[in-house]
């Protein structure tokens, strides 16, 4: 990296996912005086994941605020402050803690604008950490995105790359609606290209990561990288896979999905969440509604089995979807 920079000043800067999150928050706190960041251990400790490190020193205790372990209180703080002129950024340490604050999320935050006949505006962003892979067991490893995507009034994004993590955080904080940014704990060290300064990644726009001819792999969050590996491996079976990173689950970029499936005639959906009743069910339904005549095979779904996330590494490894399983499921569906 250092060498590359010496050779070429224009070489793109690489940053870890965790640092890209920090930069996104930094840009927002810098540009929006009404913004503050509140959550458990976000100030003094710099968050348990390290992504708010340095923000307290730069922006002060009035704007980077440690809260009690009170998720109902924290989420209510976000709702009430957003409705009265602030732009709160709320950190919900683990997505699993949604259970502690679901009323504030589902009945208050998501619905206030509608219930009030459009007379309320809620520019609140919630960051939360999802995903398995660190032996944190059943209550710190879940992917519960469908709890949120089922709620009209919320936007839900799930960045897979450092570039998107920074850009989607900035877009979320500039949006005047409640936006959940679902981060992934196993991606924190992932390196990727991240420009300096503020930039947006459009919410509701998927990213075609790789073009292909006869299969569309649809993924989001960390599973995008597993899908990319699977696409490489599928070449030897004569499959040229296109890979779509949804980036945004709600709103959903249906156009990009349908356009791709009409071209490739086959689709396999990949997510880390439990497969049963997962987001893949919605995607599969939309594909058959909008591109039925173009399909040459059933729409496949790869997800976690119908079980809580296990603790033991051996169990957890067999629980989490991966490239190997994507390849196997694709071959089964396509008979290759």
């Amino acid at each position, binding site marked *: 990296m250092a060498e590359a920079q010496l050779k070429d000043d224009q070489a793109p800067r690489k940053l870890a996912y965790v640092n890209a999150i920090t930069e996104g928050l930094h840009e927002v706190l810098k540009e929006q005086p*009404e913004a*503050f960041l509140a959550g458990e251990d976000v100030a003094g400790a710099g968050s348990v994941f390290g992504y708010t490190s340095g923000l307290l020193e730069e922006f002060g205790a*009035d704007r980077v605020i440690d*809260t*009690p372990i*009170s*998720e*109902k*209180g924290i*989420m*209510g*703080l*976000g*709702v*009430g*402050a*957003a*409705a*009265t*002129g*602030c732009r*709160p950024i709320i950190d919900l340490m683990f997505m699993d803690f949604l259970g502690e604050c679901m*009323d*504030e999320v589902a*009945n*208050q935050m998501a619905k*206030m*604008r*509608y*219930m*009030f*006949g*459009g*007379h*309320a*505006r*809620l520019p609140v962003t919630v960051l939360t950490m999802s995903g398995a892979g660190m032996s944190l067991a059943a209550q710190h490893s879940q992917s519960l995105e469908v709890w949120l995507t089922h709620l*009209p*009034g919320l*936007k839900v994004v799930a960045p897979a790359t450092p570039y998107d993590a920074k850009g989607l955080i900035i877009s979320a904080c500039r949006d*005047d*609606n409640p936006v959940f940014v679902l981060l992934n704990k196993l991606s924190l060290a992932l390196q990727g290209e991240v420009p300096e300064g503020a930039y947006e990644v459009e919410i509701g726009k998927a990213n075609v990561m790789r073009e292909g001819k006869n299969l569309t792999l649809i993924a989001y969050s960390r599973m995008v990288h597993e899908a990319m590996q699977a696409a490489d491996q599928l070449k030897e079976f004569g499959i040229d896979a296109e890979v779509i990173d949804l980036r945004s689950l709600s709103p959903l970029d249906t156009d990009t999905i349908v356009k791709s499936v009409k071209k490739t005639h086959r689709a396999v959906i990949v997510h880390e969440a439990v497969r049963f009743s997962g987001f893949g069910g919605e995607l599969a339904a939309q594909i058959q509604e909008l591109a039925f005549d173009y399909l040459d095979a059933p729409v496949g779904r790869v997800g976690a089995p119908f079980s809580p996330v296990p603790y033991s590494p051996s169990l957890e490894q067999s629980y989490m979807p991966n490239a190997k399983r994507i390849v196997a499921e694709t071959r089964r569906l396509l008979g290759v």
Partner: protein
Amino acid sequence: MTIQATDAVLLDIHERMVRIRIFEEEAGKLMENGKVPGALHLYVGQEAVAAGVMAHLEDTDHITSTHRGHGHVVAKGGQFNEMYAELYGKAAGYCKGRGGSMHICNMEIGMLGANGIVGGGIPIAMGAAFSKKFRKTKEVAASFFGDGASNEGSFHEAANMAALYKLPLILVCENNGFGEYTRQDNHQAIVDVADRAAGYGMPGVVVDGMDAIAVYEAAGEAVARARNGEGPTLLECKTYRFYDHVGVRGMGLSYRTDEEVENWKQRDPIKLLEEKLIEQGISTKRKINALHKRVREEAMAGIKFAEDSPLPDPDGLLEDVYYVQA
């Protein structure tokens, strides 16, 4: 420091109370006659609380309310036309017919909504109070909730955070003796909800919620503390709802005796205040009757406005789910 009510303030409080009572009496008739859809939770009997607190608040101060929220909207300055229109589900209602009785609001006068979830408004009011401190204003927030809501975790978390951050918040517990249909002694082991304040490090005050002047004075101290940056107060007002949990019927109920209701009605907060106004020469029976008549006419005009208003266009069903940049 007691803030005593001037004659003008007492008349103002009285008018707010009469407006609530008459709005609710007519709303109850509308529900009984099947004129409005949905369920109404009526505020009759508790008027002194909303009026006594709201007399201290400006439009820039924010409140959150409960499922029994009409009284708070009226006391905060809500207009009958838009309120009745909302109960009718009409496009001219405060929420364009999308919220109804349990979500009635008016952001322009700082009314952050009734709330269908017991305890749902308390963390939101705490957030509004946080915002006021963050933006370095002298504004305050108040949250109205019942004895039932004081058993919700949302109350606990919001109270702790309000005290921790010294927020300009007034937690107004309207203890009407029932959590829905369950008596207070059957839902909590304490008599005074205000006792809980000590556990959060804030003052807890008990006041007679049928005495508008007592509520006004106690609320005055709490609001002054909040405006001066001294933090939140838990103000418990002992009161009673004359009607049922939902709708009008107040007597002949299985969960309370008619005798109990009659005893509380002897202390009807409007009657108590009117006696005082006359006794102290601040008003007269004639003036009071004239006020009741004027407000009743205003209510009837509001109902007519609501009935004559168009229903929302179903084509607009999806409007306002999201804010869309113009």
